């Protein structure tokens, strides 16, 4: 027998010992949940790493998807304010695995049955509700292994439930802050809007500390909008420049409901984002939006699926990437129209603004139509920044960095304009602008 090679087991890692410890800390949670976590852990171990032969990972950098050497962080329980610069209904701020800031839900909303709680608390107090919706419609766009890892190890989850007919004007804010080197976080956000309910959720993903530490984030969102509900979800990813990030969105839209999901991608070293919308009832609408500032040597890998299951449903996808330096983006989108989904109106567009000759944008739009009376279109464009516009701005004394910021923000305006909330709109504009500071 040869001596064991120095392997990942020699380093602290996401191994079975660590999982067992994580589970034993949660022994008081419902049995079904613990079973689900065990099953997920086994699934994580059983599923292979993404491989070159997998169409879902075409063009992706696979060699740096290694999870070796990551571990769960120590609790960092210092109080942290959220990145939200706008008025909000309530907020939950997680630092590493710990909930560190929680504002009180306004009494009138609590009285109406609104629940906004960390996932572990919701599992204790509203276990049946969580069970009913947790991963009810899993996305399957390639990251199943990392979604399984999320279910197994999630500790910083959030649950929002807005009952039938309740409308909440100001956003619910969730923030995940990760501090330390070689640490991992597994955020899971579950949002359930009852019939005709209305709410906005803004979720921030930020790194604390020096922002140069190697980190892992594998997050999942389950968004459910029941009949006639209106949900706006904004996810703002601003991880450190050495973070490996997976984020998987599942969006379920029932009859006459409307979900707008806008994901802002700014940070991370390699950031994989998957989003799957299901149009489940007639009149359902899904607006899938994303804005990416791809700078440095970052890779942003976005995979989407719009599944039209019911007739008379609409979906509109617009993903815009601004590429600088030697950054790389991948967009792969598919629209599937099921046989019953007649009168579907689906649109998918990826637009890339190239601000560097060395940046690389891949676009793989696709359609799969099994009904005969539908309107579907898709497309992708890549355009270089207009040098006359750039000169015009510089001729007014605006430095090249600021000129580019203005042109990128102009390019993004079409997407941001889809937000009804002006205050949120300008907060996101400011967050994007911060990427361009010299």
């Amino acid at each position, binding site marked *: 027998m040869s001596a064991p090679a120095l392997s990942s087991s020699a380093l602290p890692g996401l191994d079975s010992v660590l999982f067992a410890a994580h589970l034993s800390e949660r022994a008081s949670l419902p049995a079904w949940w613990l079973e689900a976590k065990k099953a997920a852990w086994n699934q994580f171990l059983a599923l292979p790493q993404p491989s070159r032969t997998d169409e879902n990972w075409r063009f992706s950098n696979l060699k740096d998807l290694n999870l070796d050497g990551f571990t769960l962080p120590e609790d960092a329980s210092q109080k942290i304010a959220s990145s939200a610069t706008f008025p909000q209904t309530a907020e939950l701020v997680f630092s590493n695995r710990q909930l560190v800031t929680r504002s009180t839900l306004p009494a009138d909303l609590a009285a109406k049955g609104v629940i906004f709680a960390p996932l572990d608390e919701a599992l204790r107090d509203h276990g049946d509700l969580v069970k009913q919706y947790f991963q009810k419609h899993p996305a399957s766009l390639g990251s199943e292994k990392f979604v399984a890892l999320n279910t197994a190890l999630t500790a910083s989850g959030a649950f929002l439930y807005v009952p039938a007919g309740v409308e909440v004007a100001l956003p619910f804010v969730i923030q995940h802050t990760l501090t330390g080197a070689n640490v991992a976080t597994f955020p899971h956000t579950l949002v359930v809007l009852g019939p005709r309910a209305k709410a906005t959720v803004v979720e921030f993903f930020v790194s604390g500390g020096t922002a140069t530490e190697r980190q892992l984030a594998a997050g999942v969102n389950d968004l459910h909008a029941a009949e006639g509900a209106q949900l706006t979800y904004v996810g703002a990813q601003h991880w450190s420049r050495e973070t490996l990030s997976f984020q998987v969105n599942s969006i379920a839209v029932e009859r006459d409901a409307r979900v707008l999901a806008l994901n802002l991608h700014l940070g991370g070293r390699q950031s994989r984002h998957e989003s799957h919308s299901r149009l489940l009832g007639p009149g359902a609408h899904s607006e899938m939006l994303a804005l990416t500032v791809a700078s440095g040597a970052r890779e942003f890998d976005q995979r989407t699926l719009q599944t039209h299951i019911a007739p008379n449903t609409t979906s509109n996808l617009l993903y815009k990437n601004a590429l600088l330096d030697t950054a790389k983006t991948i967009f792969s989108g598919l629209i599937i129209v099921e046989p019953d989904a007649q009168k579907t109106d689906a649109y998918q567009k990826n637009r890339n603004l190239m601000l560097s000759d060395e940046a690389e944008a891949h676009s793989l739009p696709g359609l799969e139509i099994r009904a005969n009376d539908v309107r579907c279109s898709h497309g992708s464009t890549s355009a270089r920044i*207009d*040098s*006359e*516009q750039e*000169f*015009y*701005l*510089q*001729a*007014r*004394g*605006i*430095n*090249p960095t*600021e*000129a580019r910021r*203005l*042109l990128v*923000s*102009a*390019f*993004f*305006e*079409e997407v941001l304009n889809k937000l009804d909330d002006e205050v949120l709109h300008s907060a996101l504009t400011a967050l994007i602008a911060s990427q361009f500071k010299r």
Partner: protein
Amino acid sequence: MPSLEIRDLFVALSATPDKPIVKGLTLTIRTGEVHAIMGPNGTGKSTLSKAIAGHPDYVITSGDVLLDGKSILAMEPDQRARAGIFLAFQYPSEIPGVTIANFVRAAVQARLAEGEDLDATAYYKRLYSKMDLLKIDRKFTSRAVNEGFSGGEKKRCEILQMAMLEPTFALMDETDSGLDIDALRIVAEGVEAMRGDKFGVMLITHYQRLLDYIVPDFVHVMYDGRIVKSGDKSLALELEAKGYDWIKQELATA
């Protein structure tokens, strides 16, 4: 007294540096002066103004441009602008998604010291007063820069920017082209309002009519890449009456 000095300047397109368009042009503009540069099409007038502003399509192959005695050729376009040079474009770019208010604000902000914040109230007060002067509807502040603007609106917007940025030297490239007589008068009034001992102008134009409203101190005729004749405002009237052919003939016989 501040000066903009163009010394034996040769300019070509970056793509064809061996084919000069401006061929040994020399001219000094001091603050307080308005110099009109006239001449037929294709003689290098626009090339001259764009090269001074630092347009990347043009290359200065020899000669120099000095602002207050210091060469600006090593400066980037934005640095030249902040140093006090303003190019009023013949064809201003449309920038969808950037409002006039935000655009001008970014330009004003660019002139403040690091860390100094713009006083938004004072900024809007000033912007509105300049807009009133130029008879620009206040609704324009929320419109995208030059997008869907008429020719006259674009030129008035150029003058608005000039009025807000208060350059030391303005290079006005055919600001009168595409303007009806009312717009021309408004634009001219905007320039006249800035005229004084802290402001110098190089006014490029084909036509005498703008010079009825902005009376130049000097008139230069540019032909084949250089200044071939200089005089006062009466030279413009002479050109209006006789055209450019007599200049060409004079050159041929010289």
